[in-house]
């Protein structure tokens, strides 16, 4: 234990001297969490919309004015001949085309059509935006019709409420998920690359002839790098996410911290394991990065986990990131307690133990491999 502590302190000292690395860690827990939360929205927000108003009637202007912030950027006006070019260049995600004599045709009950063009390549907005715009137009049309006819009543009303995030603010989601992703990135790369570096510089060999067991060397790397990340992550949660971004935290931060610790054990072990599979830093980069991208993009932190094909979901059960995303969503958004998230804790710890054992098995062999 004493050795583990000492070697870990050494890791911390080494880290302190690499200013670029320290700066990058700082960046990844500040701006890299802040910017996407403020700037990129997963929900319908700031959708760019243009209106081609060929009618120029009070009704068409009402529709124009009904597209409100924060769901839409103020709608632009477009000429009909510019629609294709504008959509090709992705300047607008939605273009509403109100035909000539639209209002007049309604008055004469000719049932005209209003066209909503959707850039279907904008996956996160196309679907919900089209639905939302349709309902806005429908509402305006209904209100317009009411003035000229009897009020229509609806027999059954639908009231939809969102729990845990009443206004469906994506910054709540993005901030925590971005934090998760950066924890993963740091944990894999810091420990794995640190091990390769020791091997390339021959220092690992030096450690192996001292009264040190591989398990001690590995644990030292895990605790030292883990500590840096845990502290940075919790500071980020308190100062950036709660403080600057104003995201309410529903559950216990202590429980989340425990989750982070267990997760870091798993991912740093994975990082070491990956490092034992390769011979050099360029190889490590090309192995670890794809692993990281998969762990990141398929964990449910970016797109909904349920919509992935069953095979992908089954494989991703082997990734600690899936369970970590699930437990941090449960704790931080839904205020879940240990009685709810213990399975995720257990699986993450179990996967960590497997990676750790794998790394340990290969650890000594890998020194030999590096020379052969």
């Amino acid at each position, binding site marked *: 234990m004493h050795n583990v502590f000492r070697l870990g302190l050494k890791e911390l000292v080494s880290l302190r001297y690499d200013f670029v*690395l320290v700066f990058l860690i700082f960046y990844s827990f500040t701006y890299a969490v802040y910017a996407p939360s403020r700037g*990129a929205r997963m929900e319908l927000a700031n959708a760019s919309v243009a209106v081609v108003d060929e009618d120029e009637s009070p009704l068409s202007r009402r529709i124009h004015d009904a597209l409100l912030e924060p769901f839409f950027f103020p709608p632009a006006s477009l000429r009909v001949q510019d629609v294709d070019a504008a959509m090709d260049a992705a300047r607008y995600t939605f273009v509403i085309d109100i035909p000539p004599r639209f209002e007049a045709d309604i008055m004469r009950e000719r049932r005209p059509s209003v066209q909503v063009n959707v850039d279907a390549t904008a996956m996160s907005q196309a679907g919900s935006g089209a639905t939302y715009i349709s309902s806005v137009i429908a509402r305006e049309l209904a209100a317009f019709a009411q003035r000229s006819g009897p009020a229509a009543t609806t027999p059954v009303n639908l009231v939809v409420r969102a729990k845990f995030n009443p206004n469906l603010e994506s910054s709540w989601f993005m901030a925590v998920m971005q934090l998760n992703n950066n924890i993963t990135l740091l944990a894999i790369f810091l420990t794995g690359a640190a091990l390769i570096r020791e091997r390339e510089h021959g220092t690992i060999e030096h450690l192996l002839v001292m009264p040190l067991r591989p398990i001690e060397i590995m644990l030292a790397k895990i605790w030292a790098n883990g500590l840096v990340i845990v502290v940075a992550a919790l500071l980020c949660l308190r100062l950036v996410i709660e403080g600057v971004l104003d995201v309410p935290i529903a559950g216990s931060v202590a429980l989340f911290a425990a989750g982070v610790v267990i997760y870091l054990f798993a991912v740093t072990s994975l990082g070491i394991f990956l490092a034992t599979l390769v011979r050099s830093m*360029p190889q490590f980069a090309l192995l670890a990065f794809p692993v990281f991208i998969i762990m990141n993009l398929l964990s449910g932190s970016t797109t909904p986990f349920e919509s992935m094909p069953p095979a992908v979901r089954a494989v991703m059960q082997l990734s600690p990131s899936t369970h970590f995303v699930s437990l941090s969503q449960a704790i931080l958004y839904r205020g879940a307690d240990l009685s709810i998230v213990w399975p995720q804790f257990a699986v993450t710890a179990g996967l960590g133990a497997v990676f750790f054992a794998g790394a340990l098995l290969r650890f000594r062999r890998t020194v030999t491999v590096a020379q052969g």
Partner: protein
Amino acid sequence: MTATPVAQLRGITHRYQRVVAVEDMDLDIPAGAMVGFIGPDGVGKSSVLALIAGARRIQQGRIVVLGADISQVRQRESVCPRVAYMPQGLGRNLYPTLSVFENVDFFGRLFGHAAAERARRMAGLLAATGLAPFADRAAMKLSGGMKQKLGLCCALVHDPDLLILDEPTTGVDPLSRRQFWELLRRIRADRPQMSVLVATAYMEEAADFDWLVAMDDGRVLATGSPEALKSRTGTGNLEAAFVALLPENRRRGHRGLRISPRAGQDHEVAIEARGLTRRFGDFTAVSNVSFRIERGEIFGFLGSNGCGKTTTMKMLTGLLPATDGEALLFGHAVDTRDMGTRRRVGYMSQSFSLYTELTVRQNLDLHARLFHLPPSRIAGRVAEMVERFGLPEFVDQRAESLPLGIRQRLSLAVAVIHGPEMLILDEPTSGVDPVARDAFWQLLIDLARNDGVTIFISTHFMNEAERCDRISLMHAGRVLAQGTPAELVRARDAGSLEEAFIGYLEGVTEGVDAQASRPAPGIDDARAAAAPATRRPAFSPGRLWAYARREAVEIRRDPVRLAFALLGPIILMLTFGYGISFDVENLTYAVLDRDRSPQSRAYLENFSGSRYFSERPPLSDHAELERRLRSGKLKLAIEIPPRFGRDLKRGRPTEVGVWIDGASPLRAETSRGYVEGVHLRYLDGLRRLSPRGHSPPVADIEVRYRYNQAFKSVYAMVPGVTMLLLIFIPAMMTAVGVAREKEMGSITNLYATPVTGTEFLLGKQLPYAGIAFLNYVTLVLLAVLVFEVPVKGSLAALSIGAALYVFASTGFGLLVSSFVQTQVAGIFAAGILTMLPVVQFSGFFNPVSSLSGGARVMGYLFPSTYFQKISLGAFTKALGIHDLMHNFLALALFAVVYLLLGRMLLRTQES
């Protein structure tokens, strides 16, 4: 000797942080001579040589080399092709995976020789150095002596007028050393106008030089021929002369070495090897080696580099398992789990293996603690080691800034800090100056004689071998001879141990030796062709191509990396193409039906019938609803109020409640849309059944999904993932590029050869851009054949875009690599810096037109945004070259800007 000096130094001062390495030095170095720099470690020899070579930036003062003032960039560049520099460390500026031929060829190309001339020169040099039979062997598989000969070939390939060698024979065995100097002498005989500057730790070598610079403490003590120095000091040999030249306070501590004979023979065996054998594949590194070393004995291991000494030592420490035979320490078989034995052993490996980022004190302290010295004794022990190994002035310096000799001393100090009973030392004194070496040996002898410490040591120094109780001569994995030094000399009937040693070696290496000593026909050819390449174009495609070729060969030699680079994107594309989907399906829901009427069941059937929803057991109350939503098992819950059916029949308005899990806003938003859709369909159905009827809508709303009528994720995902992968993978590949050369030392070639920063960066970029473009081709094939996402627009536009894009992305990686110091930071920076703008701000998930603030700026300041438009445009929007023109321009601009920025950040001289 000619009158004009080859190099003139005026007022040269060089500092590393606070430490002064060279202080106010004035020196005129005569031309056409063999000039030696002698002096202890860390007195500034290497710094002076690197400054003269132009590899280090001059901080203060002026240096004129071959008539050019090298503090001026222009003049330095013009003189650079006439200078060759071989840095310290075995083969440090060579490329380990490249063959002998490829290494020399690379340097030849850097100096812009035409193919025929290059071939002629190389044939000459390889023949002269005896390397011709090994032309296809990888540099890393050469012995130390051969590496140095190869380094010499690389330095001489362009016929320099000034050759600078920094400790070329340190760590090289006597036979190779002798051959090395012989070779240099022959070359000088052919090219008498060439000046050679050498730093050396071997005084006996320096004795044969024409002119010497004795240095101490950053200053020149004396200059002149060896004879002049000897007669000035009235001493018989150069070593004594040097000591006499030292100021009084530096001489303290140096006294003749006293070797007390080994008393009271203790026959307890400390180390025993029985038939040790180690094979790597079909190569036998160590073959059937046996020896017994008694407690308190000093046992020397001699042999040329690569003869298996290090491998044997590693087997003794348990670092390498033996293929055959066994090793015993203190009578026990070597067992890696035996911590007790390890605590009794001190080991020092050949290459420096301490933490370079820690200071001398931190390294010592760390090891004292790892060996569990009592905390109260640690400070004292560290101080004692610092004192004993002459480290006081370096104690707070980080190990990376220490000169080679000082590092070796630190390694030794670390190896003995815990007072081990046995020391296994692999060439501990390589690169250590004579004074420090004697002091070190005094310590070893004291340890062995007084404390009974067993010492197993390998060395190249014959005077050290003579001090051993017994020695073993190794060659090509076998022990040639074993016994006391006197016995070996007698057995060979030789005058000295060195002669005996060389005799033994020549006995078994006749073939190689004959090649080396054959008159070198090639040298004359090379000289005949020597038209000094003084012209140095500002930009040379040849040098760029040399780097590109070399990088490509290195990649080809690393099939694992190549496989990762080519297969990685395919695997990722398959995973993401199938895996990432915005199509929200399988939403788990449960029902809290407080009515349980036929009407409520009819309403709910609309949900259970939809493919978007997947029903779970019903809810009994609000508490359960709360709990199951919280656990994440339900994504939504539907509540039907009491009297739903009755109210509906009576036409009294009623209200259905739906709770959605808002934790993931994207999913929540989409599911709200689905719920509303189902609800509207239900109302529609009611309306049709209702006798009263309802007024039809006044107008239709026609939604047209453009570019992707079926509105399936895959059509947006495949172009998007192409964009993603063509920046991640190429940037990762290049991000380690420059940093790796910095860590490995081959960056020196950028500092000391005529290659410019631009050629260096572009040359490194080309092969990776090529691989990345290959990735692009496979990704498009996957898209079309596997995912059936056709390229609706112009394939040419897509390909032009991809070509520009991969230059931008590899350029970004190189830019990162230029400013980081370590590969770790390079990988990490490439990861963290690309992740955010590429995934979030490029229009992959969110349209760029919806971004705001810093996110939008970041999106526009990253090439991925523009390629995303090209990729989507060409794949799904049926656009052509003309429509995408400004995106091409943007990408080209990024490629150029990254290159220029990288060029600015890349140092072409060491600071």
